[in-house]
Every structure is written in C-alpha cells, then in structure tokens.
C-alpha cells in the first residue's frame, strides 16, 4: 500500500475535522431498551433515553431532527424527537424490524422484517405501510443507492443480495454471496455496493451496473482464529479511498484501501464490534461493541482508536448527528 495515499487522505480529513468536530452520537442498546447520547466533543455519555423493546437499527431523519429506531420486539419503528428526546410517534413496520434504509428524499423507509421474509416500505409522513416485497429467508441488510433507484437487501439464510428496483418494487437481480450476509453499503458514486458475510468471513464488492462480484475481500488477523472473523458493519469514505469493516467477535476493525481492496490495518476495538458510522466530515468512525458495552472512536487521519466510551448493554446501532 502506498503510504502516501493514507497521508494524503489524512491531511485532507484532519483539516476539515477542525471545522465541524462537534457532533452528537446516538447509540441503540439492544438489551437495555435505551438509546445512549454521547457528546462528540467531550466523548462522554450525557443522557440515556428509554425507548421500545430491543432497539437495533437506527437512522437520522433527513432534516436531522428525528431519530428512527427499529424497536424489534415492539414490532414497530419509533420516531425519537431530538429536541425533546421523547418518542414523538411510532410507525408501522411489519414484524420484527431489525434494520432499515431511508430513501434519499427522506420520505420512505425500507424495513427488513427478519421473521417474515419481507421488505416493508413505510411512508413516514402518512405513517403507513405502502407495500411489502417478498425476499429471501431472514432479510437483514438494507442499502439504498445514492440516486434512490435501487435497494439492495441481503437475506441471511438465503445468502443472497437482492437488488430491488424502487420504482417497480420488483426484485431485478439476485447475487449469491458468502454465508450469512449482513450489510449492503453503497459507494457514494453509486458504482458499487459492498456486502459483508458474517459466517463466510468475507466482504463481496459488487459492480452495481453489471451486478457481478468484482472482488471478494478476506481477512486474517494473527492470533485470531478464522472462525472469530465475522464481518458485519461497513463504512466507505465518500471519495472511496478507505473502507472500514467491523469484524464482530474478531474485535477488530479492518481498514481497507477501497481502490486496491488491500487490507491495510486491523484496529483493535471493543468486543463483538458490530455497526460503524462516520461523523459528518468523516474524520472519525464510531463502532458499537456489543459484548464490551462500549463504543470505540477511530481517528481516520491517524487510523488509531482514540477512545472508548461506555454506553448501555449490548450496543447495536450508532449514528452521528452534526
């Protein structure tokens, strides 16, 4: 790996970081039925908000005024008003919502119903289910293309990434990936989406136009058994220079050159690292660590873990609000 590239990324990100460092971090705690609020400046937890049962996937609304929460065991989505920190309303979601995606207009949520082999489309303003799309067994990952035209859904037991045309709401392609696919994350240019496979231990890079796997990235950490390497969360920088992949019980985040697909570095974080999120200027990556009950803060410029912050029990999802 050319070290110059990292240095170049590092410089551009470090300077941007100084301008907009202060953010607020929201973490869903699957076991506690709460959301922890962390101050991005001091990196201290400042508040714990009670929410519905088994909160997992979380997303910021387009106007950044609300947080959408998949309350899996409550079988609905909650809308947390971030001015009052109170649940303002609930949205129908179908059974057991685990993870979801917001369309680029901010009007629709695409929800994976793990128990029903369905993707449910929810109109946020009207608070109604628009339609349901049958997919594979245990739908999980949801990634919407930057132009909003395609939704990629992964199904954990079918081991596929389903490409859904959001206009016709039909499945237009099925791509077989490795076992137990988790997340599907698009590159900002819409040219690729990356799919993590928890049991397969890999990340498949898919050419979005050809709908073909162009690279299968695998991981090897000295001293960590291969069975413990279980990729889940993915975060790719807007310029598609770097990608971060959470390795679950491998307790590491892999840093990947997103052009050459070479793994550059493994960063030791907390236990069972699950979801990843950038802050707005992408100077940091936040990780949820489900077993050690904390989040790790990765400095993108230095590629170092700068802090871990204790949150609730079994932290699952994380977002940064500017």
């Amino acid at each position, binding site marked *: 790996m050319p070290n110059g590239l990292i240095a170049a990324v590092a410089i551009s990100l470090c300077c941007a970081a100084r301008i907009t460092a202060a953010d607020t971090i929201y973490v869903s705690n699957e076991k506690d039925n709460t959301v922890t609020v962390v101050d991005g400046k001091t990196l201290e937890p400042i508040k714990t908000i009670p929410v519905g049962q088994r909160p997992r996937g979380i997303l910021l609304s387009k106007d950044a005024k609300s947080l959408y929460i998949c309350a899996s065991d409550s079988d609905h989505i909650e809308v947390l008003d971030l001015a009052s920190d109170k649940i303002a309303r609930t949205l129908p979601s179908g059974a057991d919502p685990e993870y979801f995606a917001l369309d680029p207009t901010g009007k629709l949520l695409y929800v994976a119903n*793990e*128990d029903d*082999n369905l993707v449910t489309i929810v109109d946020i303003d009207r608070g109604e289910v628009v339609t349901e799309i049958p997919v*594979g*067994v*245990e739908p999980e990952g949801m990634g919407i293309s930057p132009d909003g035209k395609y939704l990629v859904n992964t*199904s*954990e*037991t*079918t*081991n*596929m990434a*389903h490409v859904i045309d959001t206009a016709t709401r039909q*499945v237009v392609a*099925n791509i*077989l990936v*490795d*076992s*137990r696919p988790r997340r599907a994350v698009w590159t900002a240019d819409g040219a690729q989406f990356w799919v993590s496979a*928890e*049991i*397969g*231990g890999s990340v498949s890079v898919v050419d979005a136009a050809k709908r073909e796997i162009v690279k299968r990235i695998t991981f090897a950490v000295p001293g960590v*058994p*291969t*069975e413990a390497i*279980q990729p889940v969360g993915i975060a790719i920088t807007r310029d598609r220079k770097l990608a971060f992949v959470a390795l679950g*019980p491998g307790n590491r985040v892999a840093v990947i050159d997103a052009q050459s697909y070479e793994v550059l570095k493994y960063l030791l974080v907390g236990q069972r690292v699950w979801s990843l999120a950038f802050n707005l200027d992408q100077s940091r990556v936040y990780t949820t660590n489900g077993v050690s009950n904390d989040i790790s803060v990765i400095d993108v410029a230095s590629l170092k873990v700068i802090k871990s912050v204790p949150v609730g029990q079994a932290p699952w999802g994380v977002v940064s609000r500017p």
Partner: protein
Amino acid sequence: MRIGWLSRAVKRTLPLSYLDQPPQDGGIQGARLGIADNDTTGHFTGQSFTLTEAIVPEGGDVAAGFRELAAKGVRLVVTDLAALELLSVAGMPEATGTTFFNAGTADDRLRGEDCRANILHLLPSRAMLADALVQYLVVKRWQGLLLVVGRGGGDREFADDIRHGALKFQARIVQEKPWTFVPGARRTDTGHFAIQAEVARFTQGVSYDVLVVADDEDEFGDDLSYRTFDPRPVAGTQGLVPTAWARPHEQWGATQLQERFLHQAKRWMTDRDYAAWMAVRAIGEAATRAKSADPVTIVAFMRSDRFELAAYKGARLSFRSWDGQLRQPVLLADARSLVSVSPQPGFLHQFSELDTLGIDKPETKCRMG
C-alpha cells in the same frame, strides 16, 4: 430436487420428568422447515425442493422403507434411525450412489470403526458432546469429576468419552460409580423421600467438584440435582447438558430459527429437529453453490473445502474429511439458560478450533472403504 426422509416411528421411553414428553414428529419437522427455507432460496435460483417421507412403523421393515425411496429416484436421504439400522440400510446394494444424512444418533462407532463412505453425520458425536462439557469444566477449574453411569449402551459410551476428554483436557475422574438404584414407578406420592436419601448416600464420602451423569434415556439423571451429599453441580446428560441445540439458545440469530420452527411445528425444536434441518439446508446450500441438482455433484461439493453452512452458532460448519462428521460448536445449556458454547477460548488447534471437539484426524479409527 427430491430429498428423502427415512425414520422409524419409535415409541420413545417416558422421561423421568413429566414436563418434556418426546414429540411424535421429532426430527421430521426440522427437515420440513429446511425444505421451506431451501425453497425460499430456490425461488430466486430456479430450484425447488420436496421431501419424500418414509416413516416405518414400529416393528416394520426399514429396508422396505428405503427401497420405496430408492424406487422414487431419491439419492439423498436424511435419516432418524438407530446406529445398527442405519448401517444395515447404508450397506444395501440399492444404497450404492445414495448418501445418508444421519440426524438421529450420536453414536461414536458410526464415526469410528463402523464409519461408512456414504454417511454424513449432522448431530455431534457423543465424543464431541463430552469434550465440549469437559472443556468448560476445566475452564471453570472444576476438574475433579464424579462420574455416574447408567445401564444403557449410550451411557457407557458417554462415560468412555468423558474419560477420554478428561485425559485430553486435564480433568480427573475421582470416582466412577454405576447407578443401580431402581426407583420403581416414576410417579408415586412421597417417592421423593427415597430418592433424596439414596442420592445423598450415593454421593457421600467422595471429594469431587462436579457430578457428571451418563443417562441417555432419562432414567434417573434429573433426580440428582440438589440431592447430593455435598453441594455440587450436576452436568452431562442432565443438568448442564452439552447439546447441538437447546431451547434457551437465541444467539447468532437463533431466535429466528426458533420462531420459524415454533410457528411451523407448534413446539420447541429438539437437537434431532435441528440436525435434520441442517441436513436439508446443507443439501440446499450445496445445490445453490454448485448450481446443480445432481446428487453426486452436490455431495462432492458438500465434502469439499469450499462448502460452508451457517447454522446459528456463530461459526461456519463443514464436514470432516476423515469421518464425515459435521464440525460445529456445541451448546452448554440447562432447561432455561444457555450457559456457554464450546470450544472454549484457549483450546487451540492447528487447523480449526472446532476440531478440538471429538475425534480428530490423527486419532480416528474410521477407514472408509
């Protein structure tokens, strides 16, 4: 794609506890759920799966049941049969070209001296279960074991496996005692006085950390906890049990499988249901990956190092080349709580830590013809 199911309707012995009666449809419900899961995938790949069921009545002829499947062209057969029955069917001339998926018995000899090239094993062997338990006891530093052995063949085998595991992982059998007390009718008023006194006498004067029980048929094992002379935990076939599947298991997405199964069968999934589900899913997975409906191609893929099965235990599962056993983590659970999952961290292996459980390649007695 046709997958066969071959089982005998055995009248299961009544367990000691009235609470968990053996289901009539054990095993086959797992296979049916596997078909449904395969079909959802097949819907996208253009493959469809059916289960052709042959359930031989008690006292009926298993060979005839198999011929019935063979006549329908079925070459992949999931079985819930005792070891000897499975061996006799797998050895029939009509069984040439058929692969059997053992989802019914943990017997070690089927993976050892009596192994067959046309049998794959989905349930963990007794040796794997014993090793999973001993690893955990060693991690807890409960290394002194009082081994109590029932009268069944499976009990003696499990006791042998515990002894072998103790040697391998450095636990000690401080004493081994056969259980000979026959309590008579299982449900009598005031029966508990006799049992309480008997278990206390039985365990008095032994210095040990944990009582390990071998009672496959549920004859007495549930009567040991809380009745020992010294306060000691009970583990083995009762108490803390090493098993392929357990009701309290809900990690690694297991909740989804538990719920799908409950919805379909209206009862909890047993380890035999789970093994049958894995058998059908392994066939489906290999068919999808190998892009083939040909049984020979499917089995060849399944035995290759490209095969991996995800089965809600946080690891990729594959078949051991030396004895056809599916390598898998083993759960340690009691009736209401998942306690641990083996292999325990720290038990290392040069190829796969899953191979610290059961009979490894250098020690196998399996010589496939």
